[in-house]
């Protein structure tokens, strides 16, 4: 059994920031990450980030990740474990881990005084005939393949979903030398930022709003996709079908918080549409209704890397503070972070998110 003060599950931007913040007070921190790499979603982001100056706007996603990883590695109080998946939380608070070495797995048990869950999000999928054909991939998968492993997903892609992620990945596909046949979205308006959309349109990629995917066809791999216009009940209108010869379909219809550990840990949960699904209730310091479990980042509600980093820092500071570790800058820093978070969620753009967060406070 491994003993530690704070165990952090998930080494994305929120988990990395949580580790850095929690270690400031001298608390012993353990950070586990399922993948070989730390950085979570950031690792795959080749574009300049939107967000506030302080949270590295205009820095490329993967560079932000590298900076945070350096900082974590330089801290004596943080033990990091990559290729290590947290499997479950037991009633006595013990967390089981599976660590991979080459083709061997070893199982570890951790008893931590507090837990910060920063496991990010899961991709949603769409039901339609033959949606299981090879060639139909989640948006994250297409990005991983291209930007991490430098492999093209195929020759000609239909992007399903015109939110920011769909738009950004379409642009990344073009950069990788892959043709994008079109982007469809069932909603009548483009969900993503207009700057991204106009960049895509300028590159000659059509965006079809008010269209849905009707079916996919192919024997061992996707060969053809049929799309159609939708009526106001989101049902395909007969006679409006269009066939597209594509070998890849990229499904980018949104994310939902990864919530398994909160259910297992017994946290009070709430379904909040604005945040992408079930999320744990939490106070301003991101403590859930189970006193020693904290949440931050996309697993607290689908948002952005900038807010995920700020939330990580808040949860990290609060968790070590609540355990009685003393860090002199605590009061000032946590107030600054809370204000920063408010700033990120301010204005017109933040209405939706603010409405969501108002439903989960306690």
């Amino acid at each position, binding site marked *: 059994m491994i003993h530690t003060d704070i165990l952090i599950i998930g080494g994305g931007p929120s988990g990395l920031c949580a580790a850095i913040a929690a270690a400031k007070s001298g608390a012993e921190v353990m950070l586990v990450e399922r993948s*070989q790499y730390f950085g979570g979603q950031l690792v795959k982001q080749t574009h300049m980030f939107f967000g506030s100056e302080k949270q590295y706007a205009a820095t490329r996603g993967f560079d932000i990740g590298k900076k945070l990883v350096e900082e974590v590695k330089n801290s004596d109080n943080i033990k990091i474990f990559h290729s290590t998946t947290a499997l479950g939380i037991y009633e006595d608070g013990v967390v089981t881990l599976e660590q991979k070495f080459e083709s061997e797995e070893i199982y570890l048990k951790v008893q931590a005084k507090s837990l910060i869950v920063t496991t990010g999000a899961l991709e949603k999928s769409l039901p339609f005939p033959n949606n299981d054909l090879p060639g139909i991939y989640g948006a994250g998968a297409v990005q991983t393949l291209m930007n991490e492993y430098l492999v093209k997903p195929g020759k000609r892609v239909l992007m399903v979903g015109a939110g920011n992620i769909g738009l950004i990945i379409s642009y990344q596909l073009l950069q990788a030398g892959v043709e994008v046949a079109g982007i469809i979205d069932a909603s009548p308006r483009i969900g993503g930022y207009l700057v991204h959309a106009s960049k895509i349109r300028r590159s000659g990629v059509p965006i079809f709003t008010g269209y849905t995917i009707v079916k996919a066809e192919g024997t061992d791999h996707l060969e053809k996709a049929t799309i159609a216009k939708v009526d106001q009940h989101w049902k395909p209108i007969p006679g409006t079908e269009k066939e597209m010869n594509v070998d890849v379909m990229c499904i980018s219809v949104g994310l939902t918080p990864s919530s398994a550990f909160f259910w297992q840990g017994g946290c009070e949960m709430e379904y909040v549409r604005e945040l992408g699904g079930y999320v744990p209730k939490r106070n301003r310091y991101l403590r859930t209704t189970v006193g020693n479990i904290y949440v931050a980042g996309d697993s607290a509600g689908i948002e952005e890397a900038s807010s995920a980093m700020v939330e990580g820092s808040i949860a990290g500071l609060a968790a070590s503070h609540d355990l009685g570790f003393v860090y002199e800058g605590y009061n000032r820093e946590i107030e600054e972070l809370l204000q920063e978070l408010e700033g990120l969620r301010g204005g017109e753009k933040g209405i939706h998110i603010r409405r969501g967060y108002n439903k989960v406070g306690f």
Partner: protein
Amino acid sequence: MNQRINKHPIIDIPLRQKIKFFYNGKEFFGFEGETIASALHAAGITKLSESIKHHRPRGFYCAIGNCSSCFMRVDGKPNVKTCVEPLRENMVVENQEGRGSII
């Protein structure tokens, strides 16, 4: 069919060590640092297994170890998530039928 990205406006293409592996008995090459599924995909192999009941072709879907769509038999061991399993020299990779028997 080669699906490697050889030039990119933003990402520097690193020089990587070549790795030999076997897929259904044939020799293939991939690179150090990538996964089995990405090496196969780069070589144009996208059907990794068949579904248990209806024998429908299966490829990867999430590529981060969440969905179990990419199971293959690796070095004799069934149900390996090839989208996250790093490629190693002389690995023996095979399509898996059904649930994957132990022997």
